[in-house]
């Protein structure tokens, strides 16, 4: 499913979070929203999900106007920055939640739900934590559970808000590569927010750089690095190490 954002603006009081932002994401693409803190990236993500409504502009999902559609009906998977796992439920119950709250007509049978959850646990390589509570897991494990929970309802679009922000550098690098492999296998249109340019350049098909609510440049990692559109992009990307693999499309390693 494709995502399209047309001329979206959003203000919080006197603070302008987004200013006339337009963006199109194709089915199966992995796009990074990159930029400094406060640049509007999370707001844009939440507007796509339906967790905020724009002051102006249109959100289209599957080429249909979804701006008025409530978050429940958008079939998006959202992974929160701090995971938002249900603390009083086990990992298994967390992942099953989206399936259990379906209306009777579309709800799968109990054994079907169990099967799906186990399948997902295997996918995120955490088969053995099903009966544990989120407080008993490490940050990286919680992150993967949050992802599995979002995937359980078979969303058409995956949105991740600073998915690795709260983790330490080593775990981050591992999960980054893992996310890319997962995406290659599932082919869902995915958008993730980050302020870490290594992450964005290494993992995504395309990068959109936001600053002060405006898109400074959109392009492949190669394009934005070699042809920065303006001085902001050039300076923002020049901070940090340059030893980054910027041709992710070439990667074909299967998820192991």
């Amino acid at each position, binding site marked *: 499913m494709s995502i399209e954002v047309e001329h979206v603006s959003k203000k919080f009081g006197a603070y302008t979070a987004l200013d006339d932002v337009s963006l199109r994401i194709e089915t199966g693409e992995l796009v990074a929203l990159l930029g400094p803190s406060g640049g509007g990236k999370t707001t844009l993500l939440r507007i796509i999900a339906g967790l905020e409504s724009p002051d102006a502009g249109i959100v289209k999902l599957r080429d249909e106007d979804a701006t008025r559609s409530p*978050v429940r009906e958008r079939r998006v998977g959202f992974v929160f920055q701090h995971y938002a796992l249900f*603390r009083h439920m086990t990992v298994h119950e967390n992942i099953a939640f989206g399936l259990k709250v379906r209306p009777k007509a579309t709800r799968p049978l109990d054994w079907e739900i169990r099967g799906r959850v186990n399948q997902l646990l295997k996918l995120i390589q955490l088969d053995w934590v099903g009966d544990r509570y989120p407080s008993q897991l490490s940050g990286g494990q919680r992150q993967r559970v949050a992802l599995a929970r979002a995937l359980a*309802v078979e969303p058409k679009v995956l949105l991740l808000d600073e998915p690795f922000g709260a983790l330490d550098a080593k775990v981050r690098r591992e999960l980054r590569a893992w996310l890319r492999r997962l995406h290659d296998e599932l082919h869902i249109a995915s958008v993730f927010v980050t302020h870490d340019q290594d992450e964005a350049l290494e993992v995504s098909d395309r990068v959109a750089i936001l600053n002060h609510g405006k898109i400074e440049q959109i392009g492949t990692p190669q394009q934005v690095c070699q042809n920065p559109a303006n001085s902001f992009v050039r300076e923002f990307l020049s901070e940090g190490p340059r030893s980054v693999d910027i041709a992710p499309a070439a990667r074909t390693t299967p998820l192991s």
Partner: protein
Amino acid sequence: MASTAIGHVAVRRGTARRDPAPAELLLTVLALVALSVLIVLPLTAVFIQAFEKGWQVYLDAVRDPYTRDAIRLSLLAAGISVPLNLVFGVAAAWAVSKFDFSGKSALVTLIDLPFGVSPVVSGLIYVLVFGAQGWFGPWLLDHDIHIIFAVPGIVLATTFVTFPFIARELIPLMQSQGTEEEEAALVLGANGWQMFSRITLPNIKWGLLYGLVLCTARALGEFGAVSVVSGHIRGETNTLPLHVEILYNEYNYTGAFAAASLLSLTAVFALGLKKLLEWKISRDTEGAAE
């Protein structure tokens, strides 16, 4: 925050933070003496005086029909006001903690109001509205409806005095838990009621119980407000605390302290529950901070 600091005190109590041993001993003894004289002594006095004339006299006093009526009325007043305040507390906490709107701090101050108002004034306000000379007085008389000096008035006064407890517990708790889990539930397809019953309620259950315990303890023990609206009619409009007063004023000390001992037991029990729940809640809010 607190846990780190307590960790500081417990682990890093270097020489710079230690008070000289004699001072420490003296202060501890002084504090314990203060606590004993001010707090422990009155509590033990209740029980000792209740049992002064022996176990049989105590039982007779407790089983006295007027005492039983008073217990029943106290339970009734609590039984109506607490559930009403429960619904209010949850609604108010939901509106205040998960949403932003102008006038929020005024609303919260209003919720805190009964804490600052004298219990006597709390009762007086209902007398002024429903009493014989009150706003609705004549109308009520015409329809032979009795509120003041009857049970409904007692329930009203009890409700007023206890309504902040549950809201005040839930508001900071729900604020610290944030909105993300509820939002996650919505994104996953839950409707409003599913989100509330499966996500919000389980997360606040200890805070809710805590507020319930405080609310009920206060409802059972309220004296000043109920005294004003009650009429003190033995067997009809006497709650247990009022009954204690009547017995005491009649110099029936054993009877008064026997009734008081029942209330004290409830208070001690409520305190125990309170401590247990406090511990559970501190775990819930720490979980949210992660």
